[in-house]
């Protein structure tokens, strides 16, 4: 763990001295996790790739502000989370307009049942998650979709453990209520 962290910091230092090869290594090492994080917020493949690219570019410009006491991936993830939330905030107004004209009735076209069920389930989950207030959505994504530890999330969001426990408590409660409601609406299960 410490090894990887110091390794990252060595690369960061070289990148700061202008070595783009070092930064490329950092990108290669962490891109999967950053893409995943972006996708769990945006739920759109191409937008997530753009967000990941944007995250690394922002990180590059801010390398001098990276505190070596922290984990580099946690720091990157924090930039990514903020970027994604920003994008969602900006897209929200546009989205509200768009969905009004969209056909929201469930797609009943024939398909192997379990395949479509699995797909529908996870996109329904993403829909619910995205409808939640940002504070709760963020901790739910980081804890339950990204599987990060309490320690990592506290560091990433700069909140203490009891605030985090509280938010997770509320987030799961809210998610469960929305999930149950949704099932009733669509008559699932």
């Amino acid at each position, binding site marked *: 763990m410490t090894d990887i962290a110091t390794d990252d910091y060595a690369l960061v230092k070289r990148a700061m001295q*202008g070595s*783009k090869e070092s*930064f*490329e290594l950092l*990108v*290669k090492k962490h*891109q*999967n996790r950053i*893409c*995943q994080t972006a*996708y*769990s917020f945006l739920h759109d*493949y191409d937008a997530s*790739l753009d967000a*990941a*690219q944007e995250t*690394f*570019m922002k990180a*590059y*410009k801010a390398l001098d502000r990276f505190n070596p006491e922290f984990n580099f991936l946690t720091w990157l993830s924090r930039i990514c*989370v*903020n970027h994604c*939330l920003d994008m969602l*905030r900006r897209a929200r107004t546009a989205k509200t307009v768009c969905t009004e004209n969209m056909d929201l009735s469930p797609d009943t076209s024939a398909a192997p049942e379990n395949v479509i069920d*699995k797909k529908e*389930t*996870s996109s329904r*989950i*993403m829909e619910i998650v995205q409808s939640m*207030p*940002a*504070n709760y959505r*963020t901790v*739910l994504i980081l804890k*339950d*979709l*990204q*599987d990060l530890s309490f320690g990592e999330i506290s560091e990433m*969001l*700069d*909140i*203490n453990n*009891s*605030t985090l*426990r*509280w938010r*997770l*408590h*509320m*987030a*799961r*409660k809210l*998610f*469960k209520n929305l*999930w*149950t409601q949704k099932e009733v609406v669509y008559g699932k299960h």
Partner: protein
Amino acid sequence: MVNINCPIAKNLMPLHLDGNLYPDDEAALRMHLQSCPQCAEEIRLYQDAFDGLRGAKNELQSIAWPDISRRVIAGLPDSEPVEPARPRAVFRLRFAFQTAACLMIGALIGFIAFPKLTAPVPENAVDDVDISNVRTNFPELGMRINPLNQPLKEHFQSPGVMVTNVDENSPAAYAGIKQWDVITEINNCPIEKPDQLQAIFNDYHKAHKNLKFVIIHKDGKKDIYTIKLDKKD
């Protein structure tokens, strides 16, 4: 073993899902579930929702991502800080001007149409909510609370809210809560700010259920007190 009622059991459920409860709460919840079909159904709903999340997590992890390192490196600025290109600067200026104009018109309309509305607080993912309008007086319990400032948090080595006043002969006084006590948890929910106490209080007061407070006294000693909320009718 403590016997808990349904609202308390329900409040324990979210963190029970992945084993993040304290052991005695976990034991109390398990015992309650054995004798309460409603809560057993409720926990099934939680479990179902949690399984859904887990499925989404696995699917998320199975998505294949391309190598974006070339894209990233190609998009990086050169070692010297780059001046923004001219057309872009013009665009930005124009954009800034348009934004300012829109804001001014918006503000004007807002001022005429909704003179009493204050500016909306921008939503921020990591900042905490504004608590300036939050209720800090709980006459139903007979106490007043205040947020804990940083030096006090450090002194008590815990977040929480401070009880700044307790009325004589009030439920709080009967329960044993004293002035300058710090409330750190209620019914297993960590309390960090007055609005959290308010949320829990509303839930439980409606249901006429008990509130279990974890308290740190001035001298640093910890205690657990219960306030019984009686039925009014």
